[in-house]
């Protein structure tokens, strides 16, 4: 049954994919409770413009993707923090622009046209070992963030004014978090593609929120749900030959729907 695990490219896919699930599970509950989940949509599309620029000027798309995603993440953060414009309007404007810019840049790179579909929908089975190392570094960053700033982030999400008064550097924390969330989104983009990254950044946390009442459990559950979906998605894709990205998203969505069902049935029993 699990014979696919003996293939090296499957091992890489699984290892990388599970790390993406873990980092997404660490940051996404905070995004969710700040009502900023849509941000991951904006950042992942920003990463696409970065990838396109990397291809055009011939450097590793990973670096340009990081630069673009972080730039966009901090910009969205700044605009929504200073409250001049609502977040969704900012994200909506910039993500369309990023996609347009990305397609334009890819079109400009004459001759070699890389597989745009691969970047849009990802291909877990084609990841390299350097991608896996990249994911490992982001995993360490996300874990350190959670360890040192996790509690403060929960507090300032719950009650920003009081957090300031007990001495939490709310503004610095906010931008640090935006930077970490942007990095996490970039890894998700590298593994499951621009379009599907937001799925793994939103759905596991949303599913966990519905069935858990403790923040630490929400985080643990959203990590577990993501890991389960990655495992199921990769195995399913191996045996059915459907692309791995969409396959993972099917599993993520299935978990979300099941949680929704659990929540509804609980309410039903109560009433």
């Amino acid at each position, binding site marked *: 049954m699990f014979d696919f695990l003996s293939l090296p490219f499957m091992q890489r896919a699984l290892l990388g994919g599970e790390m993406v699930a873990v980092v997404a599970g660490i940051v996404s509950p905070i995004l969710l*409770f700040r009502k900023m989940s849509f941000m991951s949509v904006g950042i992942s599309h920003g990463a696409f413009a970065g990838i396109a620029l990397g291809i055009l000027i011939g450097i590793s798309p990973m670096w340009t993707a990081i630069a673009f995603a972080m730039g966009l993440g901090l910009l969205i953060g700044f605009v929504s923090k200073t409250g001049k414009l609502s977040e969704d309007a900012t994200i909506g404007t910039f993500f369309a622009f990023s996609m347009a810019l990305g397609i334009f840049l890819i079109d400009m790179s004459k001759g070699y046209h890389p597989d745009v579909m691969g970047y849009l929908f990802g291909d877990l089975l084609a990841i390299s070992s350097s991608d896996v190392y990249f994911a490992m570094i982001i995993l360490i960053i996300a874990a350190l963030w959670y360890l040192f700033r996790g509690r403060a982030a929960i507090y300032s999400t*719950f*009650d920003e004014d009081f957090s*300031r*008064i*007990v001495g939490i550097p709310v503004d610095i924390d906010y931008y640090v978090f935006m930077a970490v969330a942007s990095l996490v989104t970039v890894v998700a983009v590298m593994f499951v593609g621009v379009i599907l990254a937001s799925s793994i950044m939103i759905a596991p946390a949303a599913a966990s929120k519905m069935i858990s*009442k*403790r*923040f630490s459990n*929400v985080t643990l559950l959203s990590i577990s749900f993501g890991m389960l979906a990655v495992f199921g998605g990769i195995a399913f894709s191996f045996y059915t030959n459907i692309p791995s990205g969409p396959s993972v998203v099917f599993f993520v969505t299935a978990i979300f729907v099941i949680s929704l069902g659990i929540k509804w049935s609980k309410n039903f029993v109560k009433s």
Partner: protein
Amino acid sequence: MSKGVLFIDSLTVRYDHRVAISKISIKLDLGKFHVIMGPNGGGKTTLIRAIVGLVPYEGKIEIDGLNMKKYLKKHPIGYLAQRGAQFQSFPLTVLQVVEMGRYHFKESKAVRKKHARQYLNEVKMDSLANRSIGELSGGQQQRVLIARALATESKLMIMDEPLTGMDPRSQSKFYEMIERIKERYSLTIIISSHDVGFTTAYAENVFCINKHLVPHDEAAKLLNDPEIKKIYGSKIRLVEHHHLPSEEKEDV
């Protein structure tokens, strides 16, 4: 010169150029229980938020001779915000909410929880310690937030309308608790309130703001109104404070 007092000197706060409070000057003795009164929109919340450093202001605020902003960097304040919308489903327990007030202490998780429980007990909410904060009623949430403010163990407690949503029994319990902890820990307490009855009976100093500091004799006239006295008794105390210079022109 301003030892032993919270000294507010010519404090002006604007929101987008509109003046919310203007040139408020007052000295509040440390170690006393002060009450800010005033109509809706009179600027109570604004004054409180300026004191705790949540809004920028012009003028000066000093505590015991020290610039308030410097003081705030080292000392948290037992702050309770005016009640807005109720907290909806947020995955924190009542106990964890109170633990927020311990953030600045270097203590183990177990000690933190022990202290938090003790302050929950102070507001008689310990039986609900493990409930989700969103599952509590508005008045219960208010009591939890009061416990959180107490948990900071600050010398200065500033609470914006702490009594909204509390039944009369809880209100008098609140005042008894305030008096008790004030004596025990020699705290300075500043609250805002609309309630003339209870508040003025327990307060050691009441002042009234309506964009400006309402001059003492006007406020006194109001509080000495025979009707009000009849309802609330005569335990109403007001202090002298600086009179305003003649009416200033307001920025538009």
